[in-house]
């Protein structure tokens, strides 16, 4: 059992949801004034990259 797979799926899923929230939510509700950036979008992309990286490591690890 490779724990990187469920962790990767969780983060890829959460990242996608955050990106969707960042793109679809009314900008007035995104509290852009506090962070200065669309935090949902930026952090969502970071989580997506982490999640996909974990999935790739799990899959390549299994093949080896």
């Amino acid at each position: 059992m490779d724990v990187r797979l469920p962790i990767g799926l969780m983060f890829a899923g959460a990242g996608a949801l955050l990106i969707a929230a960042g793109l679809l939510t009314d900008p007035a509700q995104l509290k852009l004034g506090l962070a200065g950036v669309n935090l949902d979008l930026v952090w969502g992309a970071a989580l997506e990259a982490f999640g996909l990286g974990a999935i790739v490591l799990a899959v390549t690890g299994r093949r080896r």
Partner: protein
Amino acid sequence: MHLGVVDGLILGLYLVVVLVIGWMASRKTKSGTDFFLAGRSIPAWVAGLAFLSANLGAQEVIGMGASGAKYGIATAHFYWLGAIPAMVFVGVFMMPFYYGSKARSAPEYLRMRFDEKTRGFNALSFAVMTLIGSGVSMYAMAKLIVVLHVLDAPFAALGLPQAWIFHLAVVASALVVLVYIYLGGLRGAIYNEVLQFFLIVAGFAPLAWLSLKTVGGWDGLKATLGPAYVHAWQGMGHASTNRLGVDAFGLIMGLGFVLSFGYWCTDFLVVQRAMAADSMSSARRTPLIAAGFKMLIPFIVIVPGLCALALTTAAMAPASANPLAHAAQANGAAIIPVKLDGAGKPMLDSAGKPQLDYDLATPNLLIHAFPTGLLGLGLTALLASFMSGMAGNVTAFNTVWTYDIYQAWFRREGTDAHYLKVGRITTAVGVLLSIGTAYLASQFNNIMDLIQLICAFVNAPVFATFLLGMFWKRATGHGAFWGLVAGTSAAALHHGMTLPADSLPGVKGGWLAMVHLYPSEMAQNFYTAIFAWSICFGVTIAGSLMTRAHDEEALAGLVYSLTPKLSEPGGGWLRNPVVLGVLVLAATLVLNIVFW
């Protein structure tokens, strides 16, 4: 607070993944060793993150944020002084005996090294402690969901009474933890703890960054709160010149030695994760890998608390220019609200000032700062921390109950399948008892004080027992047992005859007589631990010298001087526990200097 669809989906996704991990782990859980020790097959990095995550429960995430707001960055002593050195010590020096002895639990090591009665004393006190810990974690989570009004809107929409929110939160969290431990045992818990660790970081790292940015960075924090909040060591010479109310001796001896070594080196809740590692080398590196991450945790749990206080202070100032504090003002709520009594009136301290409800510092900051989406992630991180704390207690409880109490006292010669069945039943019973403890906790105001007290009573003396057991071959079973009894009694006596300032006799102490008044609760707690450890240490030595020594041959592999020295593993310096330990200690020293 209103949760959006995305917030709900992230929470739902987490619950599904947690259960899937439990199911995946169940496919590899066929024997007692699989269930209780994850088949001793866990890689070092997984065991290391689980070792850390099992400790990242409710008290840690909410409590350290609260302490950050109350005491400042000096709270980091609980990491840089009160955890890292002990984690290095257990990895480098103690793990060879835990792992090498093939003991299935920490109390079982005591049986192998000393005798049955010493194991029994430790097993019983530890079992009670884990049940209380698990219940308090559950209670804290349910209370937080109620206070933050997370489920108010869905309950109102469904026409359900708001009073049921607490019950649902308790039962649902208990059920999820029960399912994944029942199915996957320790393996299910460990793999979920790794997921929970990453989620806690993912949820709290942006909160720390955002809140620090909002208060104007570290300089802004310093300007708003003053130097007392941003220095860890300044003023530690005397109890009256620092916010902790503790002198340097109490801090270093009480927290830095007795309490931290007592917890990290002997508490089976964390040690169990290292004992599940796939080799001696992995077991020794487990606490060291955990320590490498542990030293950075203050930046994501303490800093938000400090920022919450700075924003609350700014919000109290007229015409605040800070956007977050201004938003909080506009909503009619400071980030850290005033504590209210049962009648809804503000609680005042001895100087007549309103007391702040520091426990809400981190959760309220999360609600005010995060937009929808990140809010769901932050709440998932909170839920993950509660679950990991609870699961850590439940897995430790089922192992200690099954092997150290049931097998030792009720059925010595059962089959492996029988103990596996007992372990699963114990998991269900343990979760049920934890629910009972959660409801019991809701009846008392001071349950958090009580659990800290129990830890000081249990962990402090038992560290002396383990220390002498592993490093002094002359220590005997009778000496160890009576040392433990005397140490625990000394803790109770010290607590019963002392009281922290501004407290009434009762759960906070002074229930026997009033001999000494401590400047703070923390000082009393540290000195209770010092007394308990010292008495246990002294009585164990005296008792051992008065009784017949153990046969040295039987102690091989259990005592330092009678065990062949381990050859350090090859494969580079990153695999060498001694090198890793030195690196971790050096990095911790640098952090202490930077935040001096």
